[in-house]
């Protein structure tokens, strides 16, 4: 009987001790990341039968259980992946946005300043200081373009570096999960009655959570207690005790970038931003594939269009020395990059045919053996051509050399290099072509009321070789005139319509009013025309000319659209980042309300188990006293 009391009291002591141990473990791990609160599960062993019924046999500790819900854990993991992706994208876009919108560093102020310089020069065409100022402002504009491009390159290099380091982190996590899988199997195999290795499971869950912040991954539990981890696209990175590393290697399509994929044998199964459902890697890839090229292309488009259109007008003018205007700006050229794994030796040639039709996109041209498939990135619009050359969105694509093999692919970057090599070619202030190369005069002896316009040089450059030849228009009557001068072919008896354009030798003039017979009008070289600002006025008008986007946007408009588009993306990322952050926090709160350690609760538990221990000890003391009573009986 008292044996029984001893046994029962001892089992109570042991249970209370286990409770105290577990509670102290909980308290000790209050700040351990990923730790799940543990509790002792105790029950009553089978009672002893006696004539008076069943007598209890004390208590036994069945197991130590962690407060854990697979569902809540899944929520934390998934929302964590989403929130980490949104946060990463938000951070990257904020950097890009600061670059574009900074009033001191953006393009808009430099563009405004430059055209202000053009206007100043138009107001003072003979003034050397105004000419010098325009070159200085052009230099500032060029520096801004080059600097923006360099900063974009730095962002790109930074993103590539981060991608490499994220891939490294993912591989390390995968390896540790595989390692924990092995240890969990070993722990589970120990002893006849398998008990869950709670702390190892917690560690593995914490690793999975961390892994999900880098890349969204699903875990599938196996019967032996291990988990297999799959990426969104189905590739396994952990199977049982084995981890399969993600590979990061230079991209064959664009060698500056790091491509991420799963190495299966010799082929790299490439992962793109769209293949990854969440986590920082997905955001980094998306940013590098979408936002960075969009900004770089849009900037390049502004740079190339400005350079080409300004040069076109500048080359129609005449500089301070009387020479024809030369090219003013240089900008980068369009490029076609052959994939490094192409089988054929074809090289594509790319040129801009129409600046107003250009988009801010890159293209991929693929020779499938029968046709060229040209795809616009990233929106996927495509064209199919049996043969090149063809023009797509203002970009003329041709085969420059060699023969393609089926499957050969080329990346076409019409404007990406535009901003990076933007430069000012005109260094001498006197070489700015502010004047027009021709001027008009009316004969001193004219008796009619005819007047002649100032005249304009026809676009596009190069100007006509006979542009500066003196041409005389002589009226032979009120409605007819003769033209004489080198290059005109000396036509006679041309019909006169007041105000109608008359074009010869690459210029256009208008004569209006009523000239009398014998009246003469002369078009001649603008020798000494240093105060003429006609060409500079044409150049300054480019500021507001809608020369981009099919004639709907000026340079500043195009830049505004770019800043707004990135602003919108950043706003979107910010809003979804906040929402996903909230969701992740709620999931964490829900999960922690089950699994987290509450110190007050643990304090109560400490008291509970302490009292249980003291009570069991008292029961032992009473059993001892009972035993003493028996001994005393024998001694009497």
């Amino acid at each position, binding site marked *: 009987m008292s044996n029984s009391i001893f046994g029962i009291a001892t089992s109570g002591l042991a249970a209370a001790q286990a409770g105290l141990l577990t509670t102290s473990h909980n308290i000790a791990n209050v700040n351990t990341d990923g730790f799940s609160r543990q509790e002792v599960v105790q029950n009553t062993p089978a009672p002893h039968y006696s004539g008076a019924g069943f007598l209890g046999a004390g208590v036994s500790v069945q197991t130590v259980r962690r407060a854990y819900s697979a569902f809540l854990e899944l929520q934390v993991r998934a929302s964590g992946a989403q929130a980490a992706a949104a946060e990463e994208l938000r951070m990257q876009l904020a950097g890009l946005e600061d670059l574009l919108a900074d009033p001191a560093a953006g393009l808009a102020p430099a563009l405004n300043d430059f055209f202000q310089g053009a206007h100043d020069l138009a*107001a003072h065409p003979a003034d050397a200081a105004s000419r010098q100022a325009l070159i200085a402002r052009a230099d500032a504009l060029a520096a801004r373009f080059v600097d923006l491009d360099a900063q974009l390159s730095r962002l790109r290099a930074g993103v590539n570096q981060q991608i490499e380091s994220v891939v490294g982190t993912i591989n390390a996590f995968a390896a540790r999960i595989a390692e924990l899988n092995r240890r969990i199997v070993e722990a589970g195999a120990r002893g006849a009655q398998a008990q869950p290795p709670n702390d190892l499971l917690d560690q593995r869950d914490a690793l999975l959570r961390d892994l999900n912040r880098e890349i969204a991954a699903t875990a599938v539990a196996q019967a032996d207690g291990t988990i297999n981890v799959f990426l969104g696209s189905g590739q396994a990175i952990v199977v049982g005790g084995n981890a399969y590393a993600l590979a990061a290697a230079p991209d064959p399509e664009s060698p500056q970038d790091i491509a991420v994929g799963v190495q299966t044998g010799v082929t790299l199964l490439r992962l793109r931003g769209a293949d990854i459902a969440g986590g920082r890697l997905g955001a980094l890839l998306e940013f590098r594939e979408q936002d960075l090229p969009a900004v770089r292309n849009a900037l390049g488009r502004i740079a190339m269009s400005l350079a080409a259109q300004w040069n076109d007008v500048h080359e129609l003018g005449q500089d301070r020395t009387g020479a024809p205007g030369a090219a003013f700006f240089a900008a980068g050229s369009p490029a076609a990059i052959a994939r490094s794994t192409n089988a054929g030796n074809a090289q594509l040639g790319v040129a801009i045919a129409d600046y107003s039709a250009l988009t801010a996109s890159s293209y991929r041209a693929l020779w499938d053996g029968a046709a060229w498939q040209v795809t616009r990135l990233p929106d996927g619009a495509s064209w199919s051509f049996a043969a090149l050359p063809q023009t797509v969105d203002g970009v003329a694509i041709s085969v420059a050399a060699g023969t393609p093999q089926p499957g050969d692919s080329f990346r076409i970057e019409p404007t990406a290099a535009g901003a990076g090599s933007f430069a000012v070619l005109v260094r001498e202030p006197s070489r700015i072509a502010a004047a027009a190369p021709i001027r008009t005069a009316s004969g001193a*002896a004219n008796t009619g009321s005819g007047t002649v316009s100032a005249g304009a040089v026809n676009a596009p450059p190069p100007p006509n070789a006979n542009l500066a030849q003196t041409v005389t228009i002589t009226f032979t009557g009120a409605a007819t005139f003769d033209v004489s001068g080198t290059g005109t072919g000396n036509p006679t008896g041309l019909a006169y319509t007041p105000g109608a354009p008359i074009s010869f030798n690459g210029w256009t003039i208008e004569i209006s009013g009523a000239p009398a017979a014998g009246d003469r009008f002369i078009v001649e070289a603008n020798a*000494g025309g240093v105060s*003429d600002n006609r060409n500079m006025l044409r150049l300054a008008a480019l500021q507001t000319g809608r020369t981009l986007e099919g004639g709907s946007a000026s340079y500043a408009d195009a830049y505004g659209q770019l800043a707004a588009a990135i602003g919108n993306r950043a*706003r979107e990322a910010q809003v979804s980042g906040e929402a996903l952050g909230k969701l992740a926090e709620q999931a964490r709160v829900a999960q922690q309300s089950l699994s*987290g*350690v*509450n110190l007050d609760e643990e304090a109560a538990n400490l008291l509970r188990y302490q009292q249980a221990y003291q009570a069991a000890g008292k029961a032992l003391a009473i059993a001892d006293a009972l035993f003493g009573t028996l001994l005393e009986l024998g001694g009497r």
Partner: protein
Amino acid sequence: MRISTSLLYGLGAERISRQQAEWARTQRQLSTGQRVLSPSDDPLAAAQALRTAQSKSLAEQFAANQGAARDKLAAAESVLGQAGEAIQDARALLVQANAATLTDADRAALALALRGRQEQLLALANSRDANGDYLFSGYQGTTRPFAASAAGATYYGDEGERSLPVASGRTLAVSASGAAVFDRVPTGNGRFVVTPGAANAGSGTHDGGAVADASLVTGDRYRIRFAVAAGVTTYDVTDLTTSATLVSGAAYVSGRAIVFDGLQVAISGAPADGDAFDVEPSGAKSVFAALEEAADLLAAPAAGTAARAALANGITAGLQSLDQALESVLEARARMGAHLAELDSLGALVSAGKIRDETELARLTGLDYAEAASRFAAQQTALEAAQRSYLRITGLSLFQFI
């Protein structure tokens, strides 16, 4: 619901730092005066602000151009005003020289004075602006437009007109070429010119003529020829272009207008037999050539009937030329005056546009200080409450009691 202790600490601190970030953001808005700190705050407003900023910078540019245009116009206008005075002085001298009582010596003195006016006018026509560019040389700002020559002065400029954009869609001419103002002044009365025959022997003088009926004017050349037979003076009018005789043997009355083909010319005095007056469409002559001719005329002695008549006719032609010159100078001056007046109204327009752009910018990205200040205070209160309650919550623990 159970509260995890570490989450209690973590979330509390996290929320406080978020509130602090918002508070700092409001502070940044207050210190910069900008509601939109980066495009993502309001992408649409940010893009519109970029466009408005360009429009504002363009308005500033137009204002600067207006200033430059005003300077150039004012400089040219003042020079033209002085040129008008010089021409009027010269005209007064010529009128004075017409008096019959003057001796050759008196006229020679007047000729000298006239040359003085010519030089003054030449200097004015060669004026430069503040940048050192010649005002009246067309496009050739560094070319001296007029150089004195035996025939008065030669023009080396061109007919170019310098212009500046002064408002959206408005380009204003800010110069006048010397060709139009000084070099190509119409001769005669602007429509036709009366030239007495070089061999005229009588005392016939003309009045310069006038257009009687513009609808009949042909632009042909005519000759009025006098015949004196038996003390009776008659005249014929011949159209030299068509060789048609328009008037034949009409009786001459001194001072009465001779009218043909819409033109009228009054001839006074007593023309001799065979004296002729040619009537031709106006040509062009520089004001310097007109002054040169007038001075030469006054410097030469005039004795005898024919010479006196030639002098009177020369003075009439000179006066006509000076009137035409004055007219072209005044016309150029009036055009500049009109441009200056237009600049004043455009200035108001452009500055109104600039103010509109500034208002628009303030509306798009500017800060409502009252709202931001009250938000700042509210955020501060919320932050303080969060900090205090965090301290109270985290200060409570059952372990303090056992």
